[in-house]
């Protein structure tokens, strides 16, 4: 089965700024793919290219085996999009906006809409101008999830939602992925959300994919923190590959070690003799912070 989304070498310039600098992204059919990166990294630009709203300067993009620019209308029948900042028509009620977007996409499932309104606790009779940011976001989410589509493009969809609603959002994404087999591209900053939902993630920075893979693959890129009380002197530890930030105070050593170099380091520790040992597992936060930082060179 072809990938739901694949891009190769996407480049997009706005004046002198390089929004995308040779971006490669592959989203396999049926997966929930996390799309992460600091603000201004090019996530929204990528999604707009995938929607055929913006045209890439060079590179190729395929969405559901079609060209997002020239086949836009046909493709849009098969996908739904939730922008990060939803603006609605002030005089239309939420229900009207949901039905309008659903119908223009080719139809909306009434029962599913009612169920989602209930679950997201949204009053569809209110005029859009009376909605808070979170409620406007819910309108776009209900319209997207109630449509019968193969692919969902969600651009920071939970911004403005309260924790309860975020929970509902997670349940719904899991449902459409597991039960209906839909593909989801989820751009997000919320790591717990990504961890709970995504099969694979791509991290972009400055318009380029810096990392892509499953979360457990990415975990290997992180470091484990070790604190140990040793019997003997800490000879030879500093020379081992993968050991960082080694320091000693009061007979305790602290250091970080690359997760895939952990075995030789542990062997050396036991040779010296260990009185006590604390090891902290790699955290995703740490990984992301490291990858987000501009000076990091992979």
């Amino acid at each position, binding site marked *: 089965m072809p990938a739901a989304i694949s891009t190769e070498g996407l480049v997009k310039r706005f004046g002198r700024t390089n929004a995308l600098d040779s971006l490669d992204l592959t989203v396999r059919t049926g997966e929930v793919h996390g799309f992460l990166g600091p603000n201004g990294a090019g996530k929204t630009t990528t999604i*707009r290219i995938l*929607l055929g*709203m*913006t*045209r890439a300067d060079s590179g190729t993009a395929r969405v559901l085996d079609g060209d997002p620019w020239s086949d*836009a*209308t*046909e493709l*849009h*029948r098969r*996908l*739904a*999009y939730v*922008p990060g*900042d*939803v*603006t*609605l*028509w*002030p*005089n*239309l*009620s939420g*229900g*009207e*906006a*949901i*039905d*309008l*977007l659903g*119908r*223009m*996409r*080719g139809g909306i499932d009434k029962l599913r809409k009612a169920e989602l309104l209930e679950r997201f606790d949204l009053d*569809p*009779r*209110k*005029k859009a*101008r*009376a909605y808070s940011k979170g409620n406007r976001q819910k309108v*776009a989410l209900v*319209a997207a999830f109630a449509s019968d589509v193969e692919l969902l*493009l969600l651009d920071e969809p939970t911004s403005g939602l309260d924790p309860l609603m975020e929970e509902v959002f997670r349940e719904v994404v899991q449902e459409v992925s597991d039960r209906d087999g839909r593909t989801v591209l989820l751009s997000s900053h919320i790591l717990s959300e990504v961890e709970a939902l995504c099969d694979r993630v791509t991290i972009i920075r400055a318009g380029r994919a810096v990392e892509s893979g499953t979360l457990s693959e990415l975990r290997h890129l992180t470091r484990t923190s070790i604190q140990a009380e040793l019997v003997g002197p800490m000879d030879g530890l500093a020379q081992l590959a993968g050991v960082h930030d080694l320091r000693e105070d009061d007979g305790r050593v602290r250091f970080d070690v690359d997760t895939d170099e952990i075995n030789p380091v542990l062997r050396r520790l036991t040779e010296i003799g260990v009185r006590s040992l604390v090891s902290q597992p790699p955290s995703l936060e740490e990984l992301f912070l490291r990858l987000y930082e501009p000076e990091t060179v992979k």
Partner: protein
Amino acid sequence: MKSLAGTRGLIRLILRRDRIVLPLWIVLLVAISVSYVKQYGDLFPTPESRTKYASNAGFITLYGELSGTSLGEFVTWRLGFVPVMIGLISLLTVIRHTRVEEETGRRELLGATVIGRHAQLAAALLVTFGANLVLGVLLAFGMHSQGLPMAGSIAIALEFACTGWFFAAVGAVAAQLTASAGTARGIAIGVLGGAYVLRAAGDTSARTDGPLGWLSYLSPIAWAQRIRPYAENRWWLAILLLVATVALLAVAVVLAVRRDVGGGLLPDRLGPADGTLGSPLALAWRLHRGLLAAWTVGFALLGLLFGGVAKGVGDLMRDDPSIQEMFQRMGGSVGLIDSFLAGVMTLVGLIASAYAVQATLRLRAEETSGRAEPVLATATSRWQWAASHLVFSLLGPAVALLAAGVAEGLAYGAAIGDVSGQAPRLVGAALAQLPAVWVLVAISIAIVGFVPRLSMVSWAGPAICILIGLVSAGVATADWVRDISPFTHLPSLPGGSVSAAPLITLLAIAVVVGFAGLVGLRRRDMPVG
């Protein structure tokens, strides 16, 4: 005074945002007013010619009664439309910097900084009041520099500035009433329109010894006008306007205290839980119908007004060649009344082009607000999306012009006892304006398609055409200047002869330019901020 904290900073913000628009309208209105002194002094040098020019029923309806035959009085009378424009700009400025800020949420962003409860309103009002004051001072010196007496020049400055202040206060009250800036604008413009209609009806009735002359006393526009600059200079009427302004401001403040930021006093009603809209066209109808209805009603009223006065104007023009000449220059033809009606039709067509551009720019507003994005992410193509709005910028003016033509035909036909003969002629004359209107629509589509950030330049189209129309009606103008305006190439109807070539040329230009604009729109990135 804690509630006014931050006003100074907000004033600077407003001045920064309006640094072009604000000086532009001040200078433009002062320049127009001052230039009228020489222009009309030359055109109507004798008291007799002035009285005759000013005594026609149509002009009394438009500008009111002439107070005396001195040049100052005559020019003040002829400038009767300027205070209305000042009132309009003032109320729009106040709403733009109060309710629009709240509706877009920018007010909230600022509200969290050290900004008092009334600071936003105070800043908007102070800037608008200041602008009117500057306009008044410039006008007083400008008029005086043309050789008019100083006292009268100060009086006309007060007339204009007080009208601006009063309607700024009207805008301030309207901004408190509803959560929607559009509705607030509608309310305030309604008050302005109401004041204008009261004055027009009262003055016309008084002129014909009708029973409704007292209506004028209800209209703040009439109060300002009855300051009678260069005649009695009745200062106390300026004071009356100022008192009314202060009273309105007090109302605005009381209302502001009683509502939440972002909320209005008139509550939002709940809408339906399920929608019936299901296509781009249905959405566009929903977005455009209010505008269409308002313009159609306005055009019908305009038609009634012009149709109603046409016969009287014809009687009057019979003995004044200079007025005949003016209407002929405006596009009129041989028959006296027909030349008046044709001149009026050109005016109506020019106004319709403003509506056409406004409707076209809705497209761009949908894009910049972010509302186009979710629509274009559905199976709606850009062609369909653009077409759904263009239906209204092309056919909306047609409906409005039709209303004007029908109303004018009915009113004039009733006056001369020939409704069945006049109505079709005038409907045809009104609809004959469309090719020129559509050229301006096409130009604004091209601007939105190729240089979206300059979309507001689209307003230059109707503005230039109106300017050419006004100038060439007053003084003889070089042909190449007149030829710039597509309206120059329209047949002068009713009465004139129709040749197909210019109409076909205009339509062809509209189609080619408009289509090119749509191609540009299809090929560019969306949205462009």
